[in-house]
């Protein structure tokens, strides 16, 4: 129902929770970078939380509706316009054949926008998910980002599509549930598996949890690279059998998505398409409830600020998130 007129920087088909169950076979979960925006978009158009939508990084793209339908735009504000009129975020709108949807680019806050289509984006389910793994070129729309001329359709036989469109058109998210965007992204994190005292000094861990770190220009769907940690970070001289640098370790599975992985002195948050296994330490893990923020960080501009929390806090945050999706006042009636 949407034809890509201009592919902009990067448009991908992604769902949530992505392709789980294949890490042990070398396949990352992929999935939406901002799962919260995608899931709220899905609810706005009456979809299931797990349906696939379009992830738009950066902007500069344009679509034409090839059919009538309902969509919702969520995530970062990219000054999108429908037939020249500003398109509101966080609410569902009906589109007609021939409508033009044009995105400018990312602005002050946030880097990724999401388009949810009523019914969910229809691409083949590959190993349990419709998500694109861009780094492995599989899943999603032919394993690649969308380009001019591609047509994405909604799933016709979905439970959502059967219910007509009038009931969800104009559905608005209660403003109190609109996620808070920033330029310093507070990421709650849990230390481990490699931490103080055996791998990192206590001062090194203090540094991680007290110093906002600038996001590198080289931040993508596999790794959000951050600025270097100081040399006093390391509690050991080398990686023993794992290699010569203290960031080396005998190859181990990564706590992906959300691992804070350090290679040399460069930390990266491994996300979506990231490596599932490798020979570098992982000093902490961004909690599941905060994974959505990572990909909203604007490369070469925003910062990541890690906050120390406990596993109990993190489990509570997951439950709160699940409860929010069920809240009676999620939408303005």
């Amino acid at each position: 129902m949407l034809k890509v007129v201009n592919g902009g920087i990067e448009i991908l088909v992604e769902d949530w929770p992505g392709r789980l169950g294949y890490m042990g076979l070398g396949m990352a979960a992929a999935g939406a970078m901002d799962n919260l925006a995608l899931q709220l978009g899905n609810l706005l158009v009456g979809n299931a939380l797990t349906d696939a939508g379009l992830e738009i990084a950066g902007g500069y793209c344009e679509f034409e509706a090839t059919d009538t339908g309902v969509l919702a735009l969520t995530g970062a504000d990219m000054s999108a316009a429908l037939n020249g009129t500003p398109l509101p975020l966080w609410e569902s709108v009906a589109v007609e054949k021939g409508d033009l949807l044009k995105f400018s680019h990312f602005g002050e806050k946030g880097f990724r926008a999401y388009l949810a289509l009523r019914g969910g984006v229809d691409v083949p389910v590959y190993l349990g998910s419709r998500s694109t793994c861009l780094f492995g070129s599989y899943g999603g729309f032919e394993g690649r980002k969308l380009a001019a001329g591609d047509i994405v359709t909604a799933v016709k036989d979905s439970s959502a599509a059967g219910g007509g469109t009038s009931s969800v058109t104009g559905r608005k998210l209660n403003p109190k549930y609109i996620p808070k965007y920033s330029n310093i992204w507070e990421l709650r994190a849990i230390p481990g598996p490699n931490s103080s005292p055996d791998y990192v000094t206590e001062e090194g861990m203090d540094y991680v949890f007290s110093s906002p770190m600038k996001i590198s220009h080289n931040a993508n769907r596999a790794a959000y690279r951050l600025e270097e940690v100081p040399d006093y970070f390391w509690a050991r001289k080398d990686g023993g059998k794992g290699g010569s640098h203290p960031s080396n370790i005998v190859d181990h599975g990564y706590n992906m998505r959300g691992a804070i992985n350090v290679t040399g002195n460069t930390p990266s948050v491994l996300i979506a398409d990231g490596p599932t296994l490798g020979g570098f330490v992982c000093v902490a893990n961004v909690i599941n409830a905060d994974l959505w923020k990572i990909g909203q960080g604007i490369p070469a501009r925003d910062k990541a600020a890690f906050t120390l929390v406990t596993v109990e806090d993190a489990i509570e945050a997951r439950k709160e998130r699940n409860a929010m999706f069920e809240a009676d006042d999620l939408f303005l009636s």
Partner: protein
Amino acid sequence: MNKYGVIIDTLPPKGGRIEILFRQAGDGFIQVEYGYEQRVELLDSFRILAADAKIKRKNAHGLIETLPSLRANMIHFDPTVLSPQKLIDMIKEIEESIPGVDDMVIESRIITLPIAFEDSQTKKAVELYLKQVRPDAPNCADGYNLEYMAICNGCTVADIKHMLLNTEWYNSGCGFWPGGGFFWPLDPRSKMNVPKYNPPRIWTPEGAVGIGGACLFTYTTATGGGYQLFGRTIPTFQFAMKHPMFKDGPFLYRPSGDRIRFVEASEKDILDIHEHVHDKTDYEYQIEDGELVVKDYLEFLSRDDVAKGAADFLARQKEGAKAAPRL
């Protein structure tokens, strides 16, 4: 526990088992680590895979997946369904049921893979590397990697080929790249060791067989990479899942102790098989079911000829490593 402490539970050493550490790794991850020391011991991997098979068989509600590696297993779970402590208790109970090596028997298929040494495609990868990445690479001095591998191990190119063909290679787990396994020689007399490319290659063909450190890898798809190349084998992965071997998933290897062994073939044979896997989808893979009885394996290692052969090779390898140019 200090505020950054992550070892949330342990299981003390017992019999032949080293201490097991349960490391917190997030709200949906626990790493089960075998011992404190960074060591490379297949015995640790045998134990991990023996336990991993039992963990999977439990089919615990809330367990999402496991990611075994050489000396650790990363467990991914949903903590709103399965509590971390319940998960740890389950793994402890499983570990207690396999106290010693006598109790370790791993399901382990033997997959036979034909290989063409120094075929034109992997040769092309080396040529491209010399042209685009590092023209003076000492590991490609004669246009390929086998000569360099021989120098590193204090032996001849014929020895290198012989060592590859003369052992079974054991998969300690899959990861890093879709469908790729990490293979280790079961015969210590074949335990070659070579540095990785520095910097890595930009392109490697599907089916390339390479080695980095002591670990062997068969490239499941065309990609970059840093392992020294032997040649090319048949497809070990198929995204499209067209061939009956791949009807349930694109993977040939299982993350569970598969063994591979190589037999020498011509490049024409390899190309034919690629066609019969990907286009005609009628190639018959040679796979035998089997098991790896750890006790028998330890007896093999302690045989005089094996122990002496391994020690002799290690000595030559040490001299070779000194003589080899660094990368």
